[in-house]
């Protein structure tokens, strides 16, 4: 086997591909061939590196130089300067916000420094389409150890000792879940991986499947052995074509190497794994609905008990875990439950991957130890709020989660403190809001999503969220009434306690948590006809700053409804009754004198 002098890792997650990674790769191929360097440098496509904001990204090893926001023209410079002459191309290095520094090595970048990557350990580092690279990184050794040195019950004990809790949302202890499935007597059992990931803003499961599919396969086979299952399904939404392709490649390689199929690693254990592509309905991420969908039925939840561990797929005992949960499993067996349990907090062990989105400088994926504060995630890793605006709130846990205000920014991020504060871990979506976000409008956005995605089986979710959405739309439109807030609270509590499945039970959370922490914004909309954030167009009134106005009459000329009065040398005024809040005057004013108020 040839040793290459250097490796060029091109981030080829969905994020970087959409910002142009494929053409960067082609440009490297062309340049390496032209300069006769193809035998010296190896090009490798990896999964997501997490720093999506900076894509397309290429990392040059052995130096570990992190080049970001690449354009095709940059490639020739990098090849000539860095690869041939050993000089860094400074212009394409990462430049942190508020600093002139250029940071060459990716390990030195703040975004990565505070991270602790376990589930993402191989993402962006190995070639996801090469099982050999996974094996070189220690892959499938945990499986070998479990199959040849442990009994199923010992494996379950080890999982319980690790303290791993489900990373899909609920946070149920994984070892305990496995134990339930293992204790049900049956001739047939199933192990299922939930890769449905329907939360707006969350993409950790997709990234793990794209970047390190073998770790999911390994985790599932270990789980199958521990629970007594000999067959498994990965339920993945069809909107994730790259993840599906890489997983298919990985399945074929694992089969070829005997990590799947009959007599795995010569231990006599058999396990088959299939991919089931879902049509991408939010409700199909709910475990009972997911199983119905695999069976070819309409994805709708059913009451529990019986739990899947007793009666699951095709009536057989089944165990369902999320992608990120499975990604943790091989590491726990490789490094030991005690090592894993030493990370995180007392009741939330290990790490959690967060998808950072919204008004934050470094959007992307970050894996941090449990118990880290919201502030550290947003400011140290996320690089703070875009355009130096003021932080207002953070929505954690997707549509099922809640909004936390500024005075909870030092809250440690773990399952229990989040629930206590009215949010939840959920899948780990983290949407940051600044002062220009209207919290009523935000609640409306999330409720609109859950209302759209309600499967309609139970009345509280189907009708209740519809009524709540109507009220919110009315408030945002400036037609709120006395009693709306109380009605929202009553509806929310009722839906929470009477819905059939977890999705309905958590659907009112964005409304209830914004009511808890931002009640004054609702009141301003309803009673004063005012949107404090200046975001709701029906309520936003434009005003002219008397001091900044230079009396130029430009705005009076462009106003399509003649709402602005003003002659030269007279301060102008906007008539709020005529103004339609179209915003043309704001764009026209050269003196920044018109604002929403």
């Amino acid at each position: 086997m040839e040793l290459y002098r250097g490796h060029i890792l091109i981030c080829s997650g969905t994020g970087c591909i959409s910002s142009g990674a494929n053409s960067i790769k082609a440009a490297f191929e062309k340049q390496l061939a032209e300069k006769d360097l193809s035998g010296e440098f190896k090009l490798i496509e990896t999964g997501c590196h997490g720093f999506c904001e900076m894509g397309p990204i290429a990392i040059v090893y052995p130096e570990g130089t992190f080049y970001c926001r690449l354009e095709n023209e940059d490639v020739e410079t990098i090849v000539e300067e860095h690869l041939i002459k050993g000089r860094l191309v400074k212009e394409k290095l990462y430049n942190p916000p508020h600093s002139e520094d250029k940071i060459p090595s990716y390990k030195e970048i703040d975004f990565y420094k505070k991270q602790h990557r376990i589930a993402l350990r191989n993402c962006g580092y190995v070639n996801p389409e090469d099982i050999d690279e996974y094996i070189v990184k220690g892959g499938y050794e945990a499986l070998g150890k479990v199959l040849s040195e442990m009994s199923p019950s010992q494996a379950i004990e080890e999982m319980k000792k690790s303290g791993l809790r489900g990373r899909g949302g609920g946070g149920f202890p994984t070892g305990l879940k496995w134990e339930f499935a293992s204790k049900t007597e049956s001739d047939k059992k199933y192990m299922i991986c939930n890769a449905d990931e329907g939360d707006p803003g969350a993409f950790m499961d997709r990234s793990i499947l794209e970047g390190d599919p073998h770790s999911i396969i390994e985790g599932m086979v270990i789980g199958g052995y521990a629970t007594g299952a000999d067959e498994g399904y990965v339920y993945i939404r069809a909107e994730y074509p790259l993840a599906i392709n890489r997983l298919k490649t990985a399945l074929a390689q694992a089969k070829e190497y005997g990590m799947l199929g009959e007599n795995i690693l010569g231990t006599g254990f058999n396990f088959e794994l299939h991919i089931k592509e879902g049509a991408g309905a939010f409700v199909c991420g709910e475990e009972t609905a997911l199983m119905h969908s695999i069976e070819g039925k309409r994805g709708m939840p059913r009451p529990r008990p019986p739990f899947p561990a007793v009666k699951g797929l095709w009536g057989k005992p089944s165990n369902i875990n999320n992608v990120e949960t499975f990604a943790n499993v091989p590491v726990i067996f490789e490094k030991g439950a005690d090592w894993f349990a030493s990370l995180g907090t007392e009741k939330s062990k290990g790490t959690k991957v967060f998808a950072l989105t919204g008004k934050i400088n470094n959007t992307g994926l970050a894996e941090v130890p449990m118990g880290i504060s919201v502030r550290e995630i947003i400011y140290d890793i996320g690089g703070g709020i875009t355009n130096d605006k003021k932080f207002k709130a953070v929505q954690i846990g997707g549509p099922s989660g809640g909004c936390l205000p500024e005075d909870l920014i030092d809250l440690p991020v773990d399952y229990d403190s989040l629930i206590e504060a009215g949010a939840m871990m959920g899948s780990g979506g983290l949407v940051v809001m600044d002062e220009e976000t209207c919290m009523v409008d935000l609640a409306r956005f999330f409720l609109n999503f859950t209302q759209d995605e309600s499967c309609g089986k139970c009345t509280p979710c189907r009708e209740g969220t519809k009524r709540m959405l109507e009220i919110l739309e009315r408030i945002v439109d400036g037609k709120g009434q006395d009693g709306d807030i109380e009605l929202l609270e009553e509806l929310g509590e009722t839906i929470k306690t009477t819905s059939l499945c977890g999705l309905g039970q958590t659907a009112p959370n964005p409304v209830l948590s914004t009511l808890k922490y931002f009640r004054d914004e609702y009141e301003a909309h309803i009673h004063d006809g005012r949107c404090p954030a200046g975001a709701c167009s029906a309520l936003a009134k434009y005003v002219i700053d008397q001091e900044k106005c230079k009396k130029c009459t430009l705005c009076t000329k462009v106003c399509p409804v003649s709402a602005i009065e003003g002659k030269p040398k007279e301060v102008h005024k906007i008539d709020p009754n005529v103004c339609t809040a179209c915003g043309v005057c704001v764009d026209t004013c050269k003196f920044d004198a018109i604002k929403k108020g």
Partner: protein
Amino acid sequence: MSKKIKSLEDLRKLRQEKEKLTSPREGDNIQVIIGMGTCGIAAGARDVMLTLLDEINRHNLKVNVTQTGCIGMCEKEPLLDVVVPGEGRITYGKVTQDVVKQIVSQHLANGQIVKQNVVGKIEE
């Protein structure tokens, strides 16, 4: 031919055989740094590097090869540094292709410094 891995032992063997697949990405290998300033290139640093790579391949070693610019000792070019983790940094000067072969077989493979070409040593 089936690629099936039939035991944990075989898996570990395969892991060792394939180590080179990712070795340039690992930071704890022996590192060789070649001076690639204009002076270095003019003195033949590129040929030295190509020979170095061939030799590393031939001896099947895990070594990271990187480059640096001019360090000021232009008359001793081509310059080549060897950094063994924990052992400081040895700088070789006037490194011809023959000297490279010696450095690889003696220093990189067996830990013996090729004394006649050493121009300096930086302690850790």
